């Protein structure tokens, strides 16, 4: 009786997470620690980002979640199942786009989609996917004849062809030109809007900022921060910068503008760093003293600034 009522209240109060990772650890040959201690949960219907430099442990982490690698320690659950032992039950429910993989050289685009669709009975129509991902005219092209960007788009389409409940995208826009990146971003948002959970592994700040509902910042095999992109900025780098061109004279009075914390000159420009309605105060003070710069603007702190602050190094490409 007690057990059942507990179960009922559990399902009522909160949906179980799609992915639950607790104290994941992965070492190679006892010396190399790829993942030191990683815990996180991914909720249904969100785009969850793992952001970090190459070698930070992002890919190893998702490969453990996908069941491609055996963790050295900790537990991994996908839909409550262990991906190492329940591959049959998870087939079709998860879709993966891997960072390094290939198809047979002479395999045609449509054959690959048709094959992967046949793995799951309720698969999505690959004819729609082939159009969405701009591969319709490459339908009969062999894998070896595709460009890097076309291969990448084919792999994303293959990850989605089983109409999965959760999809893993590992550096999905690597090799895509800027226009194709934007199209990919729109399509990923569309996928999420249809209820698919997305796990996005990336080292692109703009991609994480634009797409992710929550971002885990990964560095040296551990998650050092986890929040919404906006939340990370507010928590770790709340200062904004007001920038304008100014003549080469003493402007120390800017220190006294309400909210200003730091004033410095950068070439022909002045930079006022601080918080609050800083732009309004700076503008008022400038006008009061007879200045009217025509390029007065605010630079919002970005995820990149947060990343630098947290890890002490820029993202390595």
């Amino acid at each position, binding site marked *: 009786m007690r057990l059942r009522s507990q179960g009922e209240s559990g399902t009522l109060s909160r949906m179980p997470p799609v992915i639950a990772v607790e104290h994941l650890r992965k070492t190679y040959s006892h010396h190399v620690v790829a993942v030191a201690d990683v815990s996180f949960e991914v909720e249904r219907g969100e785009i969850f980002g793992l952001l970090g430099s190459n070698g930070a442990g992002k890919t190893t982490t998702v490969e453990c979640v996908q069941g491609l690698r055996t963790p050295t320690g900790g537990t991994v659950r996908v839909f409550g199942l262990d991906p190492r032992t329940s591959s049959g039950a*998870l087939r079709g429910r998860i879709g993966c786009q*891997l960072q390094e993989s290939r198809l*047979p050289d002479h395999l045609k685009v449509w054959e690959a989609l048709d094959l992967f669709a046949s*793995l799951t009975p309720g698969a999505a129509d690959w004819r729609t996917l082939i159009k969405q991902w701009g591969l319709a005219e490459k339908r009969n092209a062999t894998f070896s004849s595709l460009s890097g960007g076309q291969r990448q788009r084919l792999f994303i389409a293959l990850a989605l062809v089983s109409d999965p409940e959760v999809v893993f995208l590992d550096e999905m826009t690597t090799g895509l030109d800027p226009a194709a990146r934007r199209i990919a971003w729109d399509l990923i948002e569309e996928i999420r809007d249809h209820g698919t959970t997305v796990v996005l592994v990336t080292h692109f700040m703009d991609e994480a900022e634009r797409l992710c509902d929550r971002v885990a910042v990964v560095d040296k095999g551990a998650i050092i921060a986890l929040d919404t992109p906006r939340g990370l900025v507010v928590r770790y780098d709340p200062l904004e910068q007001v920038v304008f061109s100014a003549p080469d004279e003493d402007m120390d009075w800017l220190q006294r503008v309400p909210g200003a914390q730091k004033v410095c000159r950068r070439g022909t420009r002045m930079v006022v760093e601080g918080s609050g309605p800083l732009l309004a105060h700076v503008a008022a003070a400038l006008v009061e003293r007879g200045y009217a710069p025509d390029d007065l603007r605010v630079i919002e702190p970005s995820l990149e600034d947060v990343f630098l602050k947290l890890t002490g190094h820029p993202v390595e490409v």
Partner: protein
Amino acid sequence: MEQRGGGARVLLKLTWIELKLFLREPTTLVFTFAFPVVLLFVLGEVFGNQPGGTDRRIFGGWGAMNYYVPAYIAVVTMSVGVIMLPARLTGYRAGGVLRRFRASLVPIWAVLGSQVLAALVLGVIGSVLVAAFGSLFYPVHVPDSLALLAAGFLLCAAAFAAIGTLLGAVMPSTRAAQGAGLMLFFVMLFLGGAGPPTGVMSDTMKRIGDFLPLTYGVDLLQASWNGTGWDGSAALVLGVILIVAGWLSLRVYRWG
């Protein structure tokens, strides 16, 4: 039940794709299908098919082409097994094709099974070509027992497929697999009874031949084609090879 049905469908789809991929590779295609026929043509032109026309001991009392046609059916299964299969399997592992399959949770038995099934189909096609060539251009008599010949062919093809899968599992790279495959192929071709017949071999050659799987494949198929019945000891050797190599490759095969 439903999952098993789905698995069988995936297996057949993968096999069909493997066969199409094979047709898109001209070098393997020529080597597998044309090479045995060309060799058979040379042997046929040199020896003809008169029983007793040459020294009776050389071809076991059969006409030379009655000796060689079943032998080259064994060669076709060997070619598919030790040359095509290992190159394909190591290539898939090194290139990340297996990773791709595995991430989509394609069962490993379906991947290996499709390779073996495709090899079997190619073996049948190659054997029909060899047999058709022999009976069209030289008066090779029809097989004495089609049933025994079919059983022998299946056993022989399965044993070489198992050897090929094992090579594909243990060879570190495609290049290594191709090298080892070609070496095995030519050593067996010349010393396994498909080149000089056993009747003219020196003792040393015969002793080496005793260690080569092709020798037993040739013996088994010749016996069923030429009416000496089922060669039990050759079948036993091939059966043991099939079980040991098959078991080992399933144990050793890594996803990569």
